């Protein structure tokens, strides 16, 4: 069994990765930290992702130990700069 999640990249991340969205298949029981490790393990350009990036899961800011479920939307949030 695996878990398919939808990852979103914004601003500097999107520029660096050249994509705004990616579907990632993870083993069941994976957390956000596992997703980060999977992406960083792909090498360039994903290895510029910090080990501990800020994320939002299903549009709510979340910790890295948040468990992921099938269909979750995980957004990687570079430091915000509104106003």
């Amino acid at each position, binding site marked *: 069994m695996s878990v398919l999640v939808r990852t979103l990249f914004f601003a*500097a991340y999107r520029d660096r990765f050249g994509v705004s969205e990616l579907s990632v298949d993870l083993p069941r029981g994976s957390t956000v930290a596992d997703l980060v490790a999977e992406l960083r393990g792909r090498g360039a350009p994903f290895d510029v992702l910090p080990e*501990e990036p800020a994320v939002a899961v299903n549009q709510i800011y*979340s910790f890295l130990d948040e468990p992921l479920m099938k269909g979750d939307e995980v957004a990687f949030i*570079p*430091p*915000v700069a509104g106003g």
Partner: protein
Amino acid sequence: MVFAEVRSDPINAAGLLAKVGADEDGVALLFIGVVRDHAEGRRVEGMRYDVYAEMATEVLHKIALEASERLGTDRIAVVHRFGELEIGDVSVGIAVSSPHRAEAYGASRYMIEEIKRRLPVWKKEHYADGVSEWVEGTTPPGTGLDGSTHALPLADEGLA
């Protein structure tokens, strides 16, 4: 009534102000954030705001509701823009009305500070030398990364 939205079309500041106001209110306050022509010594010719639209709409609405609860007025309208902006364009607008000035100033200040702290919006400045760079931002609270979990202590600043 609390109104919050993110939009790509220009912000109509007067229209925003017209969304607030009530017979019991003695004050209406309009804050606008405007794109300026310089940043840390560099000439800026414009900027692009990127947004996580679905989440930003929710977060902006939540910020407005928090301001409403803290300051006791629900006459609040807040709009943040995204897309390409020129010098002088309005990037954010906040209108508040309340019986007395302290609540309006408090609510307005609370919202702009929280927008800067946690609205999922990013800006890329376009400099006169042709270079464009993302502005260094703030790691939002709630991610376990910045150590802070509490909102701005308004009472301590004499704004509440």
